[in-house]
């Protein structure tokens, strides 16, 4: 009630019966005001408290599990597969590997091998086979726990070629301690990498640059680079052929839409906070198929937008029929470069 009738007039001898006006200090008037404010408060509360509600929704499409296979293959490594299963996005269970899968591997349509035993590390392997450049490989993966098997195929691309590479230093700061080869510091600059693109073929590349860790040999007083420990450096590029050129990362994705068949020089910026004199860099250029390119591109987009609630959802690419995952081939070429600083 917004309005309440005041209490009866107190039997005060100082007030006449005809005097119906209540003093503002009269308890009845106070109660009236108090009730009005309270009612107004309830009204406002109804509006404000009820503005947002969150409730669990049970009506959501729940999908049965499907097989998932992940396999990257190239000419320098034997085959290995990871097989697991998908879960509904509302399923709280942990995603686990499938340990009773049967994998049939085909080369150019002919059965090459059947793999059915999983290793202790969770991979299915085929150590006796090496993928060959230019050949098409396909797989069929089945499991007794699944009604439908999954299939995928891809072709091993030609190994890419780096014609030349150099470093341009734009900023550096070294602390030279004692021996020349004890120096360490910071270098900012760019790699100028010339690659030879195949004509009339849609090529996609991934570029990574490693640096070789080094140790100083006190006996020979020379710095020796260890081929046991390599680390990736963060790179970026504003080149228009680079897909993910907007931010620093450990690899770049490149397409040849505008450089088909050319010997193209790509400029790649880097910041090396672990710079050392005569440091060795390994430039790895990997040729990937369109399948691998789309998979990598969509995963990058998904990861980049993961914490942004306003970002458009990303559909992760998969070339696996009736399931999920990736079955993709690649070939890599390495170019070694000793730092000029």
């Amino acid at each position: 009630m917004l309005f309440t009738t005041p209490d009866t007039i107190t039997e005060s001898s100082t007030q006449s019966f005809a005097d119906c006006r209540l003093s503002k200090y009269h308890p009845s008037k106070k109660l009236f005001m108090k009730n009005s404010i309270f009612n107004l408060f309830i009204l406002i509360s109804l509006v404000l408290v009820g503005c947002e509600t969150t409730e669990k929704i049970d009506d959501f499409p729940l999908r049965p599990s499907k097989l998932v296979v992940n396999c990257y293959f190239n000419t320098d490594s034997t085959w290995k597969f990871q097989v697991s299963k998908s879960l509904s996005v509302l399923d709280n269970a942990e995603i686990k590997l499938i340990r009773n899968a049967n994998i049939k591997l085909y080369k150019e349509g002919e059965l090459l091998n059947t793999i059915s035993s999983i290793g202790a590390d969770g991979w299915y392997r085929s150590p006796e086979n090496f993928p060959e450049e230019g050949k098409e490989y396909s797989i069929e993966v089945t499991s007794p726990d699944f009604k439908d098997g999954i299939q995928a195929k891809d072709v091993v691309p030609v190994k890419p070629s780096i014609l030349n590479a150099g470093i341009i230093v734009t900023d550096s700061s070294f602390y030279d301690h004692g021996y020349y080869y004890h120096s360490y510091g910071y270098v900012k600059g760019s790699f100028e990498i010339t690659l030879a693109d195949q004509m009339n073929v849609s090529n996609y590349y991934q570029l990574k640059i490693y640096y070789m860790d080094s140790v100083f040999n006190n006996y020979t007083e020379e710095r020796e680079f260890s081929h046991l420990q390599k680390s990736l450096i963060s790179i970026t590029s504003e080149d228009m052929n680079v897909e993910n050129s907007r931010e620093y990362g450990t690899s770049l994705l490149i397409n040849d839409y505008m450089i088909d068949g050319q010997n193209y020089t790509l400029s790649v910026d880097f910041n090396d906070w672990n710079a050392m004199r005569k440091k060795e860099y390994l430039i790895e250029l990997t040729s990937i198929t369109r399948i691998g390119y789309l998979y990598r591109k969509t995963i990058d987009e998904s990861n980049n937008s993961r914490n942004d609630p306003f970002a458009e959802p990303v559909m992760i690419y998969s070339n696996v029929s009736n399931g999920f995952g990736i079955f993709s081939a690649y070939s890599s070429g390495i170019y070694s470069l000793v730092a000029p600083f």
Partner: protein
Amino acid sequence: MKLKDVELDDVDTIVGEKNIAANEISAYFEDDYKISQNLKANLGLHYSGFLVNSKFYNSLQPRLAFRYLLSESLSLKTSYSFMQQYIHLLTNNNIGLPTDLWVPATDRIRPQKSHQVAFGISKAFSDSYKLTLEGYYKSMLNLIEYKDGSSFMESNAKWEDKVESGRGWSYGGELLFEKKLGKLTGWIGYTYSITERQFPTINEGEVFPYKYDRRHDISVVTSFPLNEKWDFSASWVYGTGTAHTLPTERYMGNSSLSNYYGYFGSIDVGYNPYDLQIGEFNGELEHIDSRNSIRAADYHRLDISFQRTRERKWGEASWTLGVYNTYNRKNPFYYYIGRDERGNRALRRVSLFPFIPSATYSFTF
């Protein structure tokens, strides 16, 4: 990691966006033409031009409408129009918050175009009652949509780089029943419509529903005087839920998952701290069937109001007491995958604007 320098003019945020100067001109010619006793035409021609960033767009847009009287109370209608629009509505398909933007056509983003045809039949049962049935088809070109992964909150890319151009269709039918005279007046309307979009690289090039595709739409509006002082009005609206994009499944990604771990690599690095052991959760991916494939719960609400109008010496004053969403329907505002009270995964829906009373005082003089 160091961010690359960007010029202030290139920063794309929801505020402080670089202004785009544009000029628009238009001219319109229209004529009502009585072709015969029963056939009447409304013919129009609209010309518009738009100059932006040294790029000039212009078009001639015919507008044709015909009405044929089958009898005094029964008529057929048809129309055709070609339209060009220099403003785009850029919708966000993720969280569902009101983050849609209006952006202009630019030298890189072409203006929208549409062709629309409509047919209808109208029957007047008396001076008071009227029934109308109409159907329409509209095709649209140069529509824009955010690319996968794009966000208007990104500060290192121009909005024109985040969108893609495509096409759309909208078609359906509408039934309207009206009562115009008497104490009780109002109308009942039902619309069935389909609105779809298609873009070369969005949703893998497949057709998908537009965010605001509303298959069924019903509206019931009525008003009548309660007494000499008070009028009562009510409206009930119903619509199919809007289209949303949500993941349906999750699965294990490849161990060398992200940009920071690298993808393909032939170098044998021995112990590489970035390599993750199988069994460790090394990157969970979420599968989305297609864009806008999930339908929100249906939207409906009842609004009522009581109005008292008084004549004053200086004009007219009225008090309107109303209730928005009278039965407190929790209409969906947006959805997200979250956790319930026990920590289990759950699809959660956020609703706004429940039962809201209102009071309005207005006057005219």
